[in-house]
């Protein structure tokens, strides 16, 4: 029997490959003999066996440019803008210049999927698109230019500051929201961080609901960019999965490709500091299975309408591993090393493997994905579940619920960026 070869590059491929290892071309899954990927039940206990890291695609999947996060500005120093000379009246030195396109600006929905009519919620209203359209549209927490300030004397300028008293009324580029059918996401920079280095997206296609949340590692350069490119890469792959492709395999490819995309960012860093981020993604399929992929300490939880809630992911963090090894949880979380990551996406992540798992669920419920800016205030599962259920009771839709959770975290001090994504699963359809 002749060796199967890739239709695109003619390199040999293995019968079980779903993507060509040389050129990344998606291969049609050979009839029913596709090897089933390892199934791993995610339970909130110690000692998960970690599946082998799937073979990486040789070429990085190009990012379509759909923005999945806010416009990033470097921490600790503000980059000013070089603007096209614009006319201003002699007496009013207002910043009447269009902002130049910044990296990561929204250009629109993600790449066209092969499946019919997905809905994708990306980025935020209020973000300027390249081409100089002025930021418009109020988004909660982000002031639109011209909005009146509490001081009574001024209005928000293009940067979101009151032009009289200078107070920041809100900046559209540090808070963003997204909606899709059965999913919602809210992200906020919190109260302490100046930039939002979280990124996320939600989408729905062919009955599958998708959510991805990534948290850029602030101590490494270009954290926001790492998070955004990871989200964008993963979403593109997940939306583009043919209906016949097993979601587990697709999810593996997605997190792999995201890892590669973040790895590539390190090439531009002269000091060798590799940009890095966490990753958590959930795909809920109509057959009633939750597919989860993650690395790092951004989490996913399952809150069934009836039944036991659980945390779907186990953090790659010092505290989790210490507790695993027997340390008292209160002491572990109190330690200054608690949040040190033991796994992440980035060129320096070494041999850590991302975790891909699935959980068949019965009946309807809520999937919650979040960065540590939320769960850090709700370490006990019972507290977390309680807070989410309370937010759900006090809101009329998923977006409202996500906003309340973000508000809660801000009220607790907002020490970190906060991102919450919610997926609603209905009764499993009979297959």
């Amino acid at each position, binding site marked *: 029997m002749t060796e199967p070869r890739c239709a695109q590059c003619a390199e040999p491929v293995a019968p079980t490959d779903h993507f060509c290892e040389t050129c990344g071309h998606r291969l049609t899954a050979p009839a029913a003999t596709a090897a089933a990927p390892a199934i791993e039940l995610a339970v909130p206990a110690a000692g998960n066996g970690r599946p082998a890291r799937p073979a990486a695609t040789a070429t990085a999947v190009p990012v379509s440019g759909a923005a999945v996060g806010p416009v990033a500005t470097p921490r600790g120093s503000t980059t*000013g803008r070089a603007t096209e*000379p614009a006319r201003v009246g002699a007496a009013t030195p207002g910043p009447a210049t269009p902002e130049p396109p910044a990296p990561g600006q929204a250009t629109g929905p993600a790449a066209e999927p092969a499946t019919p009519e997905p809905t994708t919620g990306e980025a935020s209203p209020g973000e300027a698109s390249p081409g100089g359209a002025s930021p418009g549209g109020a988004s909660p927490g982000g002031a639109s230019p011209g909005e009146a300030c509490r001081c009574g004397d001024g209005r928000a300028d293009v940067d979101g500051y009151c032009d009289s008293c200078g107070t920041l009324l809100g900046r559209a580029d540090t808070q963003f929201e997204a909606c899709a059918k059965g999913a919602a996401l809210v992200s906020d920079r919190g109260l*302490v961080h100046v930039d939002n280095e979280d990124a996320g997206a939600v989408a729905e296609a062919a009955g599958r609901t998708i959510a991805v949340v990534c948290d850029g590692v602030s101590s490494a350069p270009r954290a926001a960019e790492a998070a955004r490119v990871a989200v964008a890469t993963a979403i593109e792959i997940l939306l583009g999965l043919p209906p016949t492709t097993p979601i587990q395999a697709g999810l593996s490819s997605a997190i792999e490709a995201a890892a590669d995309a973040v790895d590539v960012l390190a090439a531009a860093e002269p000091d060798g500091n590799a940009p890095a981020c966490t990753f958590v993604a959930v795909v809920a399929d109509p057959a009633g299975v939750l597919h989860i992929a993650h690395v790092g300490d951004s989490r996913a939880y399952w809150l069934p309408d009836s039944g036991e809630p659980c945390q779907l992911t186990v953090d790659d963090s010092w505290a989790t591993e210490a507790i695993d090894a027997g340390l008292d949880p209160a002491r572990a979380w109190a330690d200054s090393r608690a949040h040190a990551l033991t796994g992440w996406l980035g060129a320096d992540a070494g041999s850590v493997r991302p975790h891909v798992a699935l959980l068949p669920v019965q009946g309807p419920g809520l999937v919650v994905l979040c960065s540590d800016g939320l769960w850090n205030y709700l370490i006990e599962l019972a507290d977390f579940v309680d807070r989410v259920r309370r937010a759900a009771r006090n809101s009329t839709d998923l977006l409202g619920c996500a906003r309340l959770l973000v508000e809660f975290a801000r009220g607790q001090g907002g020490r970190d960026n906060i991102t919450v994504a919610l997926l609603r699963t209905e009764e499993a359809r009979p297959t």
Partner: protein
Amino acid sequence: MTSFTAETFQNEFLPAGTGEVDAIVTVTATGAPAQAVAGPPATGRTEVIIVDRSGSMGGSRIAAARKATIAAVESIPDGTHFAVIAGDHAAEVVVGLTEAGPASRAQAKQRIQRIQAEGGTVMSSWLTTAATLFDRRPGAINHAILLTDGRNEGEERSVLDSALAAVTGRFQCDCRGVGTNWVVDELRHISTALLGTVDIVAQPADLAADFTSMINAAMRRTTADVRLRVWTPAGATLSFVKQVAPQVDDLTGRRTEVNARTVDFATGAWSAESRDYHVSVTVPPGEVGGERLAARVSVVTTGGDGDEQVAAQALIRAVWTDDDALSTQLNRQVAHYTGQAELAQVIAEGLAARSAGDDRTATVKLGRAAQLAAASGNAATSELLEKVVEVEDAATGTVRLRRGVQAADEMALDTRSTRTVRVGKRD
């Protein structure tokens, strides 16, 4: 076509209840050719050379001054307009305002050769006459060189000050003192008001090279009348704006008001270059977790049609936090330039103390200068200091005043004390 960028370096985090914000704003102009332009910019250029021909200039000095002026005229490219003024108790326009070309240069040379030294020194008349010449070519990039060898003895300081106020903004002027009988503070007073440099040329023979280099530098400037516009919010105080690179120059007193919250600082004409500014603002404290725009710094130029353009902007922010780790960090750039500004200041104070005979203060101040210069890697200033003090231990600032310091060395330290070194941009 020159384009500008403005970048802010600061630690934006403040402890609750405070409001002092310090930032370094780096303004960079790019796009102008590095070499002298072959032809004048659209707005045109005018050069005026002012030569002191008072009696004390007699002998080698006036001969060298003539040579240097001729060298300067020869460096002026075709198309640029120029004039030469010989100054004593009055100002004689030796070479009338004319467009540079082979014929006009040749004629200028002949006239310059005839300049003789005699008479007193009344600088106000030189400046006023130069201004009148510049006014004949509105909109051009106006630059003058002023050479003197002595004090402005022919008039009261107040008269010079009035003339200076009247000509400020009409042209930029680089001042040079030849020999050591002139007063650094006096020339610096003129050069800072007229946005130029001041320096000592101890040996007359070195004048020609210095003049040529000043003309070449002027020819590289292609954007006229660049202003730094600073907006601060209601209730805020703009404590100071100082240029800190390439030289320290406190601009605060020279601001002009645009409106209740906005002031302008003239920075003259720019070539392809970069200058750093230290902006210090005090704002009303905000609540923890809140943020306020402390200042908006804009680079404003005037287009050919006379309209103002905002060429670049930088934001200076204040963010309140109760996290000490965030608010107690000192931004590297701010710390560095605060040190460079202090360096210039202690040198000035040290030299003043020394002239007044207060050796103890001079030793302390110049010792601190040696310490700052060494710590910041300002080798040029360390070298100049070594001519005036013997440095026993730069790290602790232990120095000993030298006896028998050459006047030229002391004046070199004085004039060049404001030159700073930069720090790397990476945080």
